[in-house]
């Protein structure tokens, strides 16, 4: 009887510890983000208040200033948003096309030095953005594509292709070869066999690769901060710096822009969440 009780107590203690641990982890993950969202709705006076004010009041001032005030030192948010969207979407599409054909080549053909090529491609992804930004800046300036959408798109495509190849390669490899052989026997061309039979099967892998490419481009800062100069091509991560002055930072305004930046990424990730995890694991483990 006593042992029973002790055992039950221990289980209960473990369960409580588990719950508390999980709760702590989740709060640490959530609080920083929520703090940003909360502060985007608080007036500047309250953010700067000393001693701190713990009962938040609600205001849309920062959003009004952000969307309305292109004049008086305001930040041209719409342009930044548009630039970010154009650059991310276009570079993702191109990277997926190029990466898919590369991944298909790795998954379906045998050739000499295959793993060498593969690791070589991945190493280009490992080059730190800062280290690349110095020479890339000089080369782009020579060619004259600095401060343009085109230049940034080009850079992001090159950045995203290796990882896309890695993920799609893993997915195409999972599809049995017999599938497209059967399609070819039935009279498909190689292209038709790919497009009508293999592509639909690998679609979720392609989707996850696309999400990663999009998030990378959407969030990238080290390259963008050097390759863009004016309102015409600056992306949102670079735009965040507009809220900092020499010694002060407009925290409220920055929080508002941060919210604007995070919402599209959040929505997109929610939609394809399932593919995201599957893509990472299958692409890597079985690749």
């Amino acid at each position: 009887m006593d042992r029973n009780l002790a055992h039950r107590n221990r289980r209960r203690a473990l369960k409580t510890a588990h719950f508390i641990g999980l709760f702590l982890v989740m709060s640490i993950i959530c609080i920083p983000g929520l703090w940003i969202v909360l502060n985007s709705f608080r007036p500047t006076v309250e953010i700067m208040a000393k001693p701190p004010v713990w009962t938040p009041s609600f205001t849309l001032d920062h959003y009004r200033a952000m969307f309305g005030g292109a004049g008086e030192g305001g930040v041209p948010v719409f342009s930044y948003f548009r630039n970010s969207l154009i650059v991310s979407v276009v570079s993702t599409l191109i990277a997926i096309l190029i990466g898919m054909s590369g991944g298909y080549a790795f998954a379906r053909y045998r050739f000499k030095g295959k793993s060498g090529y593969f690791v070589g491609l991945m190493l280009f992804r490992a080059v730190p953005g800062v280290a690349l930004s110095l020479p890339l800046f000089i080369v782009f300036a020579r060619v004259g594509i600095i401060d343009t959408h085109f230049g940034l798109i080009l850079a992001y495509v090159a950045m995203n292709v290796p990882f896309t190849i890695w993920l799609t390669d893993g997915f195409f490899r999972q599809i049995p070869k017999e599938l497209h052989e059967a399609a070819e026997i039935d009279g498909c061309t190689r292209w038709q066999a790919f497009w009508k039979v293999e592509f639909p099967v690998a679609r979720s892998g392609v989707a996850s690769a696309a999400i990663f490419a999009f998030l990378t481009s959407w969030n990238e800062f080290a390259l963008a901060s050097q390759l863009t100069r004016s309102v015409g091509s600056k992306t949102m991560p670079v735009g965040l710096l507009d809220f900092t002055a020499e010694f002060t930072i407009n925290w409220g305004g920055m929080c508002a822009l941060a919210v604007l930046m995070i919402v599209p990424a959040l929505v997109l990730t929610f939609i394809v969440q399932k593919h995201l995890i599957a893509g990472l694991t299958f692409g890597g483990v079985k690749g």
Partner: protein
Amino acid sequence: MTRRRVPEWFVLLLPAIIVIAAVVLIPLIFSLYSSFTPYKLTRPSTLWKWVGFFNYEKILTDAKFWAAFGRTVLFLTIVLNLELLLGLGIALMMNKVTWGQRTLRTILMFPMMFSPILVGFQFKFIFNDNIGLVNNVLQSVGFQNASLPWLVDGNLAMFSIMFAEIWMSTSVFAILILAGLFAMPRDPLEAAKVDGCTAWQTFRHITLPFLMPFIFIAMTIRSLDVARAYDIVQIMTGGGPARRTELLWTLMSRTGYVDARMGLANAMGYVSILLSILFTIYFFRKLSAARAELGMAG
């Protein structure tokens, strides 16, 4: 005469090779060349002066460079290990959850969507010594004069940066390890229970070996973009106070953009590229070894 046909695989790979050559390889060759010159942005003619290994000698004998280099290696070691341990812990806890798991997993993916620069600003805000959340909470719960200079004191600043980095990247580990736990076959676990293994033995000899490939994938993915830490450091402290948080990447960008000494900066760039490549190759090899062990090699 037989005409050699270009093989199909090469045609398929060609676009990728062209783009990478144009955007990464050519600038890298250029920067390799310029690392042997005293190139300064302000004086273009210096590009044509060859100085051999002068820049490399200069950085390799520079105490500031070695301090930054050592700090970077230390930073990566601590951060990656902590991320792995925390990620493993979180994944094991999540695996035990019986309800609401989908929601929790979604929350777990939260930090992955944040831009590194946003993470930097966010924690600069939270660790601000005057209006930051951390100090405000400390003061409100009774430490009246606890106004810790989180980003001004060298050690505290390093801690804050590591906290931000770990916050951002632990979820990659947690999610991949969790996926590994889901994919795990039940039979060996039950067999171990029947044979009287303790919980620790089961974990050590059955669960962990099975998770290894997943851990190495996470490590490989992480090692591809360890340099993202640059964004965080640049925003939170800019390498300060008094170079106490200077990493290789911030030192390089300061030398290149502020001092405009491109040749020197590119020499540093090559050291940092080598560092990243070593990390990546190491984990790639571990990954293929782990795969081969589990018979997943393809």
